[in-house]
């Protein structure tokens, strides 16, 4: 079974708006449509400024435009949060530690919730 979500949905959004790759590249501040093509074919990931520019162009949140990539990053963050939860078990108990643990547990459960909602 292939991955459930594509790294990004830039091409679909661009086509829906009737824009060409060159036009999107111009809006993103790039020199040519080659860069847009590379983003769309998942060959290259845009930098932070370009990703924000994509949000401005397509009027969709980054997490929706780059759904697959976001999911992957979210899973990684959740995994690291689980590690921190384990580490926090060894910390002295107190109000701040309890609050921290609660936050980390919420982050750790993020990818599970997302998988359920999909």
């Amino acid at each position, binding site marked *: 079974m292939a991955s*459930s979500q*594509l790294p990004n949905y830039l*091409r*679909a959004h661009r*086509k*829906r708006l*009737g824009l060409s790759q060159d036009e999107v590249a111009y809006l993103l501040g790039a020199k040519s449509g080659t860069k847009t093509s590379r983003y769309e074919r*998942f060959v290259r990931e845009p930098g932070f400024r370009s990703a924000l520019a994509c949000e401005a162009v397509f009027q969709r949140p980054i997490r929706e435009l780059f759904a697959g990539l976001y999911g992957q990053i979210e899973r990684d963050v959740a995994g690291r949060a689980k590690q921190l939860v384990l580490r926090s078990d060894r910390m002295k108990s107190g109000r701040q530690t309890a609050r921290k643990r609660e936050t980390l547990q919420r982050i750790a459960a993020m990818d599970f919730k997302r998988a359920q909602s999909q």
Partner: protein
Amino acid sequence: MTNQNRRRKELILAIAPSSRGFGFAVLEGGKTLVDWGVKSVTGDKNVVTLKKAERMVADYNPSVLVLNDAAARDSRRSRRVQELTKKIIAMASTGKVKVALLSRNQVMRAFFADGRGTKHAVARLLAKRFPEELGHRLPPKRKPWVSEDYRMGIFDAVALAVSHFLYWRG
């Protein structure tokens, strides 16, 4: 992930070869069109089409590749397209991509209960189903003396993808 969720996220790539090139559609979860369009090819059409199809398979890594069954009894596809279909199937099998073949009758039955309909009627239904993506690409109804609009390739491919999803869903 439940069975229902797996089904919803299936990525279907449909390729509909034509006399000028091919139409293609990528459908995610039966509801979202991720990519669609027509590609024209010149020169050795089968070689170029095969290369482009190979690149699409590599880019999207689909769960299934849907093609028109050119060898079906009711098929009236040219020998070139029949050969091309065989080559695309072979390419997909080497890439371990599942292939589904649908005949024209199967596609029509997916859209009309009695299986009687025209390509234009199917295209109209699809334009209604995907208004943002296909609404503005619906060609006018073809006159008998006019050759088919190149944009019909898109609708042929989307029809294959949607039919496969409907059959698969049962």
